[in-house]
């Protein structure tokens, strides 16, 4: 219990310190040991998120973006395992933390928003019951105060008539409403870090815009750091401060959003951005990336993108190391689009 009390006070101290990142992930490796071989779902991933910052973690299916999120929360179940690396949350290593400690952090200091809000919501309990439980699980607060806090959190997400929603069951709400409730629950205990795993993918465009708007505003207001996992670069282009692009378990490129979108360095980012229709002229062929996302089982050594890469050479048989070519731009490539970016 003492550990809990410490962290309850810590945030205030830490938040003043702008330079210390909320989360630092170093050389994280999460592998799944299946019957047909080991899957290196996350392979040597490093990144950090600062207070109030939104990091967009972009990648296609199988790139390991969601597994990275689950690893941070300690939610990897066998046959998966964090093999090596460090996940430092405000200086505390989560890889070596006890399950009890992780349990205490989750929903309190670190919260998660899933693609399907029903992962968060219990279908047989009223919204207020769930929200009050979520508060009381982590702090001493009487029921009335907790309910008021739940009301405030719902109001923050811009949900119409929050009082009515509190008395509703999840099935009485629309998909967008449910996701808003899930977001309110994530923000309930004013966490230091929120991991959002494609929370708007299943929603309609106008509803997605509302959710993005509210998530962005909440992060700025509360100073919560956020990792927004998505397959849609266009979503993070408008939302994130920085972007990390993942491919086959590795982060291939990191940088400030504008830099990555306007001047991508890694051939994969270049290809991905080139294949987005809105960036092209109507009716013309898109610049497609040939081939398909590789099978992570028995992935050959070297750069995982080499089979699809127009710039690949024999050098790519060796795994490229992370290099910081420009300030704040880290990339993993032997042949980056450096000349184009420099212009």
């Amino acid at each position, binding site marked *: 219990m003492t550990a809990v009390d410490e962290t309850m006070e810590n945030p205030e101290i830490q938040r003043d310190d702008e330079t210390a990142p909320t989360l630092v992930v170093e050389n994280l490796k999460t592998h799944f040991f299946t019957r047909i071989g080991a899957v290196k779902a996350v392979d040597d991933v490093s990144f950090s998120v600062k207070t109030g910052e939104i990091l967009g973690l972009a990648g*296609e*299916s199988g790139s390991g973006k969601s597994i990275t999120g689950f690893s941070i929360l300690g939610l990897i179940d066998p046959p998966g395992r964090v093999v090596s690396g460090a996940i430092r949350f405000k200086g505390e290593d989560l890889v070596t933390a006890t399950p009890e400690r992780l349990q205490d952090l989750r929903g309190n200091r670190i919260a998660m928003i899933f693609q399907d809000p029903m992962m968060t919501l219990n279908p047989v309990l009223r919204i207020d019951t769930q929200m009050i439980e979520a508060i009381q699980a982590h702090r001493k607060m009487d029921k009335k105060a907790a309910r008021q806090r739940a009301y405030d959190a719902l109001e923050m997400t811009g949900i*119409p008539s929050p009082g009515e929603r509190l008395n509703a069951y999840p099935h009485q709400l*629309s998909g*967008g*409403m449910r996701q808003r409730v899930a977001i309110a629950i994530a923000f309930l205990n004013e966490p230091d870090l929120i991991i959002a795993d494609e929370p708007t993918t299943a929603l*309609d*465009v*106008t*509803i*997605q*815009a*509302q959710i*993005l*708007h509210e998530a*962005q505003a909440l992060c700025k207001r509360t100073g919560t750091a956020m990792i927004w996992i998505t*397959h*849609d*670069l*266009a*979503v993070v*282009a*408008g*939302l994130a*401060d920085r972007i990390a692009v993942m491919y086959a378990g590795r982060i291939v490129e990191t940088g400030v*959003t*504008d830099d990555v*979108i306007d001047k991508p360095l890694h051939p994969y980012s270049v*290809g*991905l*951005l*080139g*294949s*987005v*229709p*809105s*960036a*092209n002229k*109507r*009716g013309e*062929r*898109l*610049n*497609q*990336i*040939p081939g*398909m*996302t590789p099978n992570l089982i028995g992935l050959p050594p070297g750069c995982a993108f080499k089979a699809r890469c127009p710039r690949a050479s024999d050098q790519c048989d060796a795994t490229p190391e992370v290099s910081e070519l420009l300030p704040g731009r880290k990339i993993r490539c032997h042949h980056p689009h450096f000349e184009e970016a420099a212009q």
Partner: protein
Amino acid sequence: MTEQASSSVPLIEIQGVSKRFVKRLDFAGKLARRLGAGLEEETVHAVDGVDLSIAQGEVVGLVGESGCGKSTLGRMVAGIMPPSDGAVLYKGRDIASLSGDDKLEATFAVQMIFQDPFSSLNPRMRVEDIVGEAPVVHGLVSGNGKSDYVDEILTKVGLDPALKRRYPHQFSGGQRQRIGIARALAVKPKFLVCDEAIAALDVSIQAQVINLFMDLREEFDLTYLFISHDLSVVEHISERVVIMYLGRVVEAAQAEALFAAPNHPYARALLSEVPRLDQRKRDFQPIKGEIPSPLDPPPGCHFHPRCPQAFEACSSARPMLKTIAPDRISACHLND
């Protein structure tokens, strides 16, 4: 010669098509109503009086959010679902009135590409049977010619014919979507209804499939109805765009004109709220409110509860589609 004759007749014409789904009361429900429970049959107006004509060779984009009826409309065009009211015409003739060879011709002519690359392929059939079954059954090719025919079609959609003995689960999402396209192409269609055909695919694979659609259009002179919620894809591929909201068409125009200056407030909202790569760190200013349930749509203009410019007339009278510019229609009281 038929080409010239048919040039004035649209390839596909939808005339006042509506689709209602009625959830009928079962025996227990009827009994409960008899006893005084306030149970009513629920009717969803999924599609409400839509007119649309599509000329040979055209690519029409159909856009809207969930519940707008775009998939239902697509299924009625593809002949999978009969309309409750109205008619779907193929080359000027009502599909429902056709029989025999004419009916088969219309059936083959309009094929559908589905959203889900997993549930749209029969998991227990080999690729060669998925693609080759219908042509053999209908005598387009002989049983002996099936293998070569399947090879030819698979090559056209960019799949290695050597893989045709495999089952769908042995392919990736993008490859499965190609199998679905090959299945449709195998009956030599004229018109493809693509219902969110790339929505379930990875970004880098989406581009491949869009390119494939464009290549096939050129090679087989195909006409498309491209249904999607993704405006950037629709903008890229379509010549004409139709926007639907809660079962009704709210605006239709040439793609360029519509994307440059949307007329209907819903079209404006939709266009401005699509995330785009070239809009950075923007302050999202979304339109308010939920999409109403199609079970109980708002009276008058369906969009009025969310519309920033709504006035009295909007909640009482349904705005009709009006020609507001050449080749451009919109249903909004602001145009009166």
